[in-house]
């Protein structure tokens, strides 16, 4: 696996906007095929810019971008967008069809597929995001969460092996956020789609992401598994972020109160196990079987 080319790979990438603002500098970003990678950064750190560069919407002044080992600029457009699907932050940008089915069919139709195949792909994409029943609804009658799902379906219908999402959970309530991440997890694990997402919400991420790129002001501060990235608290704070709440609790217990905690649990389950091992058995009361 390690000598297969990266699904996405950038080297010493730098990008400046026409007004001179350097939004990305010296970015090395690598995603293996089948991975679930998150870019974690505060507002204005360049997540959207990096995503647009990766999808070929902006072209970097310096550095190179390779997709499956081949230079981005060597791809013809059609081939590129069958490889890389991009989901924008605001569903309004992306949903330009009159109805859900029309919109989802936009991509497949542009590929020149026959109408029966287009229908099949639309149905399949809507099923994958759990929006089968929305087919004939008008976009402007959908709720925000539904719009986000349909936007993903529109990209999935092109069956790209790589899916890039800009803040897929922004604006969703906790239940919506959880089901969105769950959906992405399923796409990643069941359908083998490589997923790259940008976000600044730290709490739910460690459950899903294989690897995290911590960005700040257009630079990669750190890269690694969630445990590795969150271990360096100072760095996290420098990026205007924070630890997940649970980790913060345990880290304070460890740092300020001297409770001996191994490593840094990031998820609820880990935290629970660590704490249980610390609390003496005689304090624990019997739990009623329920």
């Amino acid at each position: 696996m390690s000598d297969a080319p990266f699904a996405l790979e950038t080297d010493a990438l730098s990008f400046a906007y026409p007004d001179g603002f350097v939004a990305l500098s010296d970015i090395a970003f690598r995603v293996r095929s089948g991975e679930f990678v998150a870019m974690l950064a505060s507002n204005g750190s360049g997540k959207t810019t990096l995503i647009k560069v990766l999808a070929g919407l902006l072209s970097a002044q310096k550095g190179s971008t390779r997709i499956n080992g081949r230079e981005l600029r060597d791809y013809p457009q059609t081939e590129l967008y069958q490889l890389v699907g991009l989901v924008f932050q605001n569903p309004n940008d992306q949903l330009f069809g009159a109805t859900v089915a029309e919109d989802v069919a936009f991509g497949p139709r542009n590929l020149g597929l026959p109408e029966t195949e287009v229908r099949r792909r639309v149905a399949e994409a809507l099923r994958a995001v759990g929006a089968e029943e929305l087919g004939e609804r008008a976009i402007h009658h959908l709720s925000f969460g539904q719009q986000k799902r349909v936007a993903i379906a529109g990209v999935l219908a092109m069956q790209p092996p790589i899916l890039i999402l800009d803040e897929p959970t922004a604006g969703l309530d906790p239940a919506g956020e959880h089901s969105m991440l769950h959906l992405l997890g399923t796409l990643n694990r069941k359908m083998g789609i490589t997923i790259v997402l940008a976000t600044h919400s730290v709490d739910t991420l460690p459950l899903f992401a294989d690897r995290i790129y911590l960005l700040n002001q257009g630079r990669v501060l750190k890269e690694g598994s969630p445990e590795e990235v969150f271990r360096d608290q100072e760095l996290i704070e420098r990026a205007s972020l924070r630890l997940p709440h649970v980790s913060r609790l345990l880290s304070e217990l460890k740092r300020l109160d001297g409770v001996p905690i191994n490593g840094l649990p990031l998820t609820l389950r880990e935290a629970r196990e660590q704490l249980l091992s610390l609390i003496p058995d005689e304090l624990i009361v019997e739990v009623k079987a329920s």
Partner: protein
Amino acid sequence: MSLLSELFSDLFARQDNALARIDPRTKLIVALSILAAVIYSPTPVFPLAIVIACVAVTVAIGLPCRLIALRLIAPMGIAGVLLVLQSMFSGSTPLWKFPAFGFDLTFTREGWHTGCLMAARVVGGVSVMLLLSSVTPAHRVFLALRSLGISKTWVEIAMLMYRYTFVLLDLTADVTEAQRVRLGYSNLRRGISSAGVVGGVVVLRAIDQAVRTNEAMRVRGYKGEIPLGLLPPLAWRDAWIITGSAFVLSGILISLEVLFR
């Protein structure tokens, strides 16, 4: 603004009923023939019958009466003005004469008749459109127009305009409200300058949106052509509906011609 999005929304056209299930081309052709018959009719009786029929059907499929009234009130006003205008400005046989503001007003018989006819045509025509738009979502009307030979580019732009009108209507409502809570409409002068700002915000946002929509379209393979869906082929039933209504309409028109001319 909310009134507008309510009027404009095709919420009800998306409900399922017998009329909504008919192919949009068929509905469009039948509606156009009825419209033609309405403006061709030599007597107000036929347009008025169409009004009653259309309004009855719209009520039956569950359109709120308030909405129907909203849609019909302006055309009714126009019909009224037409009636007055025609009665006073054409024809010669005096029908009524009454003094007002110190001078005589004459309503003529011929004018009154043509006025009634025109008024009936206005309300008749509008109620046909009311019924059509309450059983056919806009994008299906566009697709029908496309398959009846309207230019594809026109239909593409129409679809985009229709979709983004709602986004911009929401924006307009938000900006207007934000101005209102900061007293942007507390007198006429401020109101006018605030309205200019709303217009400016809407245009700017439209341009930004166009840039972003273009990007989103490009990553889904857009190269200058927006592909359109196809309507299913016409069924026998549609042929029956079209010929049947053509038959009935011409029958009605011929008998009206014989009876009233």
